[in-house]
């Protein structure tokens, strides 16, 4: 299905990442946004609030982030594409019911414009230190999808992509951007509506009385049941069976959790999106995501000019992690370097997968600003020794 032209601001726009993200959501057909103001994510909410009244949707500013996350789950079950955005402490508050979204298998989108932490940290300055919280922030065992845009253009595109993945895999999807991208203004080309492909929700084709909300338990995606149509279904955050009824025992737990994990693990080839450059003969491969993947470019260019064979991978999807490809490369290259704005989060995953088959380096940063290309260059030099 194509986007509705009324929702699409086709043309060359000059937008910051947050505004672009809101436009992406609107283009994807999002009609319900529940949010709570928090720097540096608020512009997403503000733009949505401004644009949505004439597009047949609702923006509501909730009392807190706990409420925001729940409201978008309720609205999604009610049949609207929904989203929220947040940063810093707000992301922590949303984690409780991000888990409910995972458990109820509810499509929705959460954009986290990362700032420096912990706690109140640096409200107006960038960080990429919520990456492990994105992966494991709610309690329990599950898999997630997290995308990382490196520009306003990608903020637009990946927000649409997040909606598509959320509908396809029937789960909340994370867009893990950061203050730098969120507040950076650049040209954003918005294509005509007919060039924007949208994934529509799959509802059951069975009759009421014959359909259950969780008919797949092996990682396949079950169609949803619509409300208000006589299905009179039940869903619960408790461990449940295919009927959505609570079952409190180890067998049911295994079936449910395995299903939640398999949904992603069986589909990694479809979900994982990485962009490789110069990896064929590389001795060193740089891994990064979001703004850091962009900031490392001058360092890579300088090293390559000096004859160091540096390749790179930009991870558009950070979660699920591109394990297969990284494992392959670890057996071939001398070093892998992770560039990220934290002191080693996604790095740990890369290091685990390399399993000592190559050297691994972290180009870390505490946040507050982006890396200096010079610092990244020094680590490349070290890795090339």
């Amino acid at each position, binding site marked *: 299905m194509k986007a509705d032209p009324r929702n699409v601001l086709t043309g*060359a*726009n*000059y937008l*910051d990442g947050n505004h672009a993200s809101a436009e992406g959501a609107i283009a994807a057909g999002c009609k319900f946004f529940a949010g709570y103001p928090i*720097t*540096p994510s608020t512009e997403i909410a503000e733009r949505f609030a401004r644009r949505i009244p004439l597009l047949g949707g609702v923006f509501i500013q909730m009392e807190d982030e706990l409420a925001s996350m729940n409201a978008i789950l309720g609205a999604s079950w009610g049949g609207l594409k929904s989203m929220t955005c947040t940063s810093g402490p707000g992301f922590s508050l949303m984690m409780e019911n991000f888990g409910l979204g995972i458990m109820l298998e509810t499509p929705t989108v959460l954009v986290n414009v990362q700032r420096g932490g912990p706690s109140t940290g640096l*409200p*107006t300055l960038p960080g990429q230190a919520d990456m492990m919280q994105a992966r494991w922030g709610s309690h329990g065992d599950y898999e997630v999808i997290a995308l990382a845009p490196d520009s306003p253009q990608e903020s637009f595109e990946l927000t649409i992509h997040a909606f598509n993945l959320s509908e396809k895999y029937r789960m909340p999807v994370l867009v893990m951007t950061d*203050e*730098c991208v969120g*507040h*950076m*203004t*650049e*040209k954003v080309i918005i294509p005509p509506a007919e060039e924007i492909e949208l994934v529509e929700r799959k509802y059951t084709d069975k009759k009421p009385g014959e359909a259950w909300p969780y008919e797949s338990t092996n990682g396949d995606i079950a169609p949803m049941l619509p409300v208000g149509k006589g299905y009179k279904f039940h869903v619960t955050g408790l461990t449940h069976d295919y009927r959505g009824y609570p079952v409190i025992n180890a067998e049911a737990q295994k079936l449910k959790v395995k299903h939640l994990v398999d949904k992603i693990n069986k589909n990694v080839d479809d979900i994982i999106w990485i962009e490789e450059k110069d990896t064929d003969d590389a001795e060193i491969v740089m891994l990064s995501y979001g*703004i850091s993947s*962009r*900031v490392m*470019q*001058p360092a890579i260019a300088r090293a390559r000019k000096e004859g160091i064979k540096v390749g790179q991978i930009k991870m558009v999807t950070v979660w699920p992690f591109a394990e297969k490809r990284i494992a392959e490369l670890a057996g071939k290259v001398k070093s892998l370097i992770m560039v990220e704005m934290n002191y080693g989060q996604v790095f740990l995953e890369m290091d685990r997968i390399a399993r000592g088959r190559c050297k691994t380096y972290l180009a870390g940063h505490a946040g507050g*600003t*982006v890396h200096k*290309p010079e610092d990244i260059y020094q680590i490349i030099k070290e890795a090339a020794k």
Partner: protein
Amino acid sequence: MAVTEIRITGFGGQGVILCGYIIGKAASIFNDQHSTLTQSFGPEARGSACSAQVIISGERVLYPYVTAPDILIAMSKDGYLTHKDKIAEDCIIVYDKDLVKLEKHGPKVKTYGVPATRIAEELGRKIVLNIVMLGFFGAVSEILPREALRKAVETSVPSGTEGLNLKAFDKGFEYGLSLKKETVATA
């Protein structure tokens, strides 16, 4: 193609960010270049000194922040004093003569002053000071075509104020042109 780093500084409410937005938009949307605008956020953008940074390049901007601006546009004394020493050796400083008193700079630095506040007041709206500065900057820096900047002004200011803003832009631009002529004549 060369990379140009620009910093605009002033106090909150002066339209510093809008000024940066228009410059970036003129380059990106109306002059087929790449540009990245970043800005200072938080309470400082709502009252005291604030700044916007624009990087203009023929290729994609990779490092998003300004390090040593090639052009410094100063609309307040505080802003000028905060940023005056963190500039490129051959920086062009564009400043509001009514608000900023210049200090000593290196020999390669070029400085251009405009009575932007006075011009804006003559137009009846002090609020267009930033657009007067923008026009002046366009004329003296010559990094962007006048038409690109004008189009960016027209499509960025609140609707209904286009006429006033374009007038402010042209006033600033003309002032810059005549100042340039003078400079050439006296050189």
